[in-house]
């Protein structure tokens, strides 16, 4: 087990990559704070079962990335639990796709608030907890869109590029104090977020990939497990593409 005895905070756990990360981290023995926008009965039942199956503690935390006060409250809740935080995985994110001439300021602002500004605010709270123990691993979910650009994804790709730059700066600032910071850039992954992509776009991406199938959320989660673990203790400031070799 790669993460036995570690405590991780994961955002965006309701579905997709976040949910797969929750499952993978529980399987690897981590105790978890599972962050969602709003917890419901189904989610609570899901984490109860997961917790029992793997013998780890999973605490639900709800906050809205568009609401600063709720972010602060969530951070306080985590702090009050008095568990040393070893790992933070920033998965939560949205995409509001539109061709450039049609992009609105409101769309850009909302995308950046959720995908970047609020994540940084939350990360700031979490690093304060990590710095007490002089250790930690932060992983941000970027995207190949943020590295390569992508038609129709101005706001999303720019917000993810911001995440890439932040990853490198945070590594420079925090790694000397024992906190590693990395990003994972998923390619086309089978999730609700990519469900709405036109088939032709997916086919085009797959034709350009060495592994010609969409990736699974679990495959991204497995990379996150490794990066979060001590097996990656000399890896920091990196952006790792989990994309089946797109462009290769």
């Amino acid at each position, binding site marked *: 087990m790669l993460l036995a005895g570690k405590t991780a905070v994961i955002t965006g756990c309701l579905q997709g990559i976040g949910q797969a990360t929750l499952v993978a981290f529980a399987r690897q023995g981590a105790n978890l704070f599972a962050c969602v926008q709003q917890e419901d009965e189904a989610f609570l039942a899901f984490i109860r079962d997961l917790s029992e199956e793997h013998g780890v503690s999973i605490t639900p935390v709800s906050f809205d990335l568009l609401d600063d006060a709720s972010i602060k409250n969530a951070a306080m809740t985590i702090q009050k639990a008095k568990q040393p935080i070893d790992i933070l995985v920033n998965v939560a994110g949205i995409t509001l796709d539109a061709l450039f001439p049609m992009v609105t300021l409101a769309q850009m602002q909302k995308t950046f608030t959720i995908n970047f500004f609020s994540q940084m605010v939350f990360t700031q709270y979490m690093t304060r907890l990590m710095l007490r123990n002089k250790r930690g691993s932060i992983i941000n979910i970027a995207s190949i869109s943020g590295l390569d650009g992508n038609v129709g994804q101005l706001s999303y790709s720019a917000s993810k590029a911001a995440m890439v730059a932040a990853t490198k700066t945070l590594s420079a600032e925090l790694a000397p104090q024992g906190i590693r910071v990395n990003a994972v850039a998923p390619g086309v992954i089978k999730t609700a977020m990519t469900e709405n992509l036109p088939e032709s776009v997916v086919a085009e991406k797959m034709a350009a990939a060495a592994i*010609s199938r969409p990736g699974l959320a679990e495959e991204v989660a497995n990379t996150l497990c490794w990066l979060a673990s001590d097996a990656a203790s000399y890896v920091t400031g990196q952006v790792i593409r989990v994309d*089946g070799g797109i462009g290769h």
Partner: protein
Amino acid sequence: MLLKDKNVIITGCKRGIGRAMVEAFAANGANVYAHARSADDAFLADMAEIAARHDVEIWPLCFDLTDTAAMKLAVKQLMSDKRPLHGLVNNAGITLNALFQMTTEQALRQQFEVNFFALFNFTQSVSKLMTRQKQGSIVNIASTAAQDGNAGKSAYGASKAAVIALTESIATELGETGIRANCIAPGITDTDMLDTLPAAIIEATRNQTDLRRLGNPSNIADAAVFLVSDLASYITGQTIRVDGGLR
């Protein structure tokens, strides 16, 4: 254990990163073909000891990678053994520290002979065996010097950059057959190779590293274990820097 009952070939296992890889792969349950240039008693005893400690098989595979005839014999042995090969880690390599204007053609060719041509030939042969079984993960050890343009590393860095380009093409060509290919680019790692560098350069590099320390051979080995394992099933054509955040 990430690699239970998998069979992996690792080159350059006598010391440094290769030796650490044998240890890490064995600890993760893999059986290892452990390559070294020459078989000596100390190496064979060391490999036997690791095998016994982790309850895996380690088969020493001793030949000179630059000797094509010897390599062909080794590949014949791999074929006749008929074991499925899940991983190939090309770790063996040499280094050179010489300013560009002082680098002789002979020294340049020597870097490419070992770091690139030998790796190319051996990987070609092993990948044919992997193609038959429709699976495999190739991990090539490159270097941050391939990407960073370090002074004194024109020949070494170029040979490692060639390895990265080769790896990307292998990923593209063999993706369909279920074979992944990736590189690891170690930063400044605590091995014999460091003895060739002036202490002042090592110290300066340490201070340019986010983690403010040198890497250990085991750090590189752990990354190779990950890339060979199924945890990395959607990662191919990549170069992963294990460099402590080298600026």
